[in-house]
């Protein structure tokens, strides 16, 4: 009875591994099987090498690898359907998330909804299904660990992006943490171990798509001015405008105190109060805070992403604080001011030059791309202008009273 030496057994083992028998448990079986075949042949006086050569030949062309594949597919017959479903969910999810990101960049409506549904499909359906399938196929503990790390990282990433979309604090930290997990734990292990065993192109394609989308969202969202960080220069400019408004306000009150019977004084006061109320309301609905908080909020503390639903709902349907009412109030004031002699002074109800040509007044200031920050600056700007114009008007009324008939003050004031 011939018994192969340890060295010969090792040689056969390496041969099996080279011929594509990757499944550990199958390799045990086939090793013993081939050893038996070889021993039988050697019993009849054939040399080890010839016997081994003939035994392998018995499996047919690529037979060892095919046996490995046949065993894999027998064991995974249940997960093939699951794999298909998860791949389809993954592809649909990444299409939804990608187009959501594109919509967001284009400031088209429905961007957040698309992004959210894509992310939810990927994080809650695709990834867990994928992990179940991968766990069944994988025997290496290292790879299993990397899958768990990858799933965890992707979930943290998804939650971070959702936080960002919903303007919750801490989104950036979540995204950074997820990047670290994916980049430092998952990717190194996965790409050095799993790509060699790429058994299923569809699932790898879906996987690559999901990875791409995660990075795409990360880049797109952190750079689209959607956060709450405001540059110092914008803040200083706005502070400067607020100071100007305060000064102009004081000056206006002083000038009109010399004209106690002048109706424009009262009208201007009313218009300015309306603008302040408009501002307070916008801040309240966009930030979801009380009136008192809205009146005292620092402009730096505003969350100012585009597409805040409450703000757009208010602009679309509030009986008082909507673009139409604002326009008619401004036009009414302007008409009365002109009647009183204010010349060549247009208020900003005109079309505005946008990056892609002229935008209507409403579109420019209250459209889909309007943020609470742009709206607040616009209302403050209006307040400043109304103050300045009413001062000019008051000065003109005073001058006309004292001046000879027909004299007109230059419209510019220093």
């Amino acid at each position: 009875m011939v018994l192969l030496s340890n060295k010969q057994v090792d040689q056969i083992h390496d041969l099996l591994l080279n011929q594509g028998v990757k499944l550990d448990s199958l390799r045990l079986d086939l090793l013993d099987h081939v050893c038996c075949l070889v021993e039988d042949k050697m019993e009849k006086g054939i040399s080890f090498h010839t016997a081994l050569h003939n035994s392998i030949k018995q499996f047919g062309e690529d037979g060892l690898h095919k046996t490995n594949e046949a065993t894999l597919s027998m064991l995974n017959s249940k997960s093939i359907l699951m794999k298909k479903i998860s791949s389809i969910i993954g592809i649909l999810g990444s299409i939804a998330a990608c187009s959501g990101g594109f919509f967001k960049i284009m400031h088209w409506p429905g961007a957040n909804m698309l992004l959210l549904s894509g992310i939810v499909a990927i994080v809650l359906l695709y990834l867990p299904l994928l992990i179940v399938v991968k766990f069944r196929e994988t025997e290496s503990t290292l790879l299993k660990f990397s899958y768990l790390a990858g799933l965890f990282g992707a979930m943290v990433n998804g939650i971070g992006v959702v936080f960002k979309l919903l303007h919750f604090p801490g989104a950036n930290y979540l995204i950074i943490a997820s990047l670290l997990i994916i980049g430092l734990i998952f990717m190194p292990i996965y790409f050095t171990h799993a790509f060699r065993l790429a058994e299923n192109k569809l699932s790898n394609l879906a996987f690559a798509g999901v990875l791409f989308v995660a990075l795409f969202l990360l880049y797109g969202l952190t750079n689209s001015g959607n956060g709450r960080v405001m540059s110092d220069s914008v803040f200083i400019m706005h502070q400067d405008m607020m100071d100007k408004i305060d000064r102009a306000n004081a000056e206006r009150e002083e000038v009109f105190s010399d004209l106690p019977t002048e109706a424009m004084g009262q009208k201007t006061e009313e218009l300015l109060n309306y603008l302040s109320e408009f501002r307070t309301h916008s801040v309240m609905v966009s930030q979801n805070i009380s009136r008192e908080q809205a009146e005292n909020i620092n402009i730096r503390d505003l969350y100012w992403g585009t597409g805040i639903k409450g703000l757009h709902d208010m602009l679309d349907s509030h009986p008082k604080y909507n673009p139409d009412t604002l326009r008619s109030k401004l036009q009414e004031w302007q008409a009365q001011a002109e009647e009183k002699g204010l010349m060549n002074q247009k208020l900003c109800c005109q079309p505005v030059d946008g990056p892609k040509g002229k935008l209507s007044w409403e579109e420019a200031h209250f459209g889909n791309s309007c943020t609470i920050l742009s709206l607040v600056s616009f209302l403050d700007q209006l307040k400043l202008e109304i103050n300045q114009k009413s001062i000019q008007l008051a000065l003109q009324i005073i001058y006309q009273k004292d001046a000879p008939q027909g004299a007109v003050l230059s419209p510019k004031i220093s």
Partner: protein
Amino acid sequence: MYSNELIKGTLKTIVLKLLSEEGKMYGYEMTQKVKELTNGKIVITEGALYPLLHKLEADGLLLTEKVAIGKRVRKYYSLTDQGSSSASEKITEFLDYMKTMKFILQGENGLALE
């Protein structure tokens, strides 16, 4: 030697029957045993046998026991309780199927091969 198609469809029954008779066997032993029992008319290929054994093990019909032989390990397969009942079911079903086939192929219904 019979065609691969026939053997493929009956391999599971053959394996279950062998194990129910012999108790525990390893893969190579099964192929030799079948060859011997059928005078070489049925040859089980490794490419079909091992995937099936792994599948039956995963489905809970077979148990394995590992015995070290020098540097290599021999895996003995045996039936679980579930495997035993599945074996007798399969065997009864197949015997019945053979009867039916015989009836179709040699019956009085004019289907006889001639």
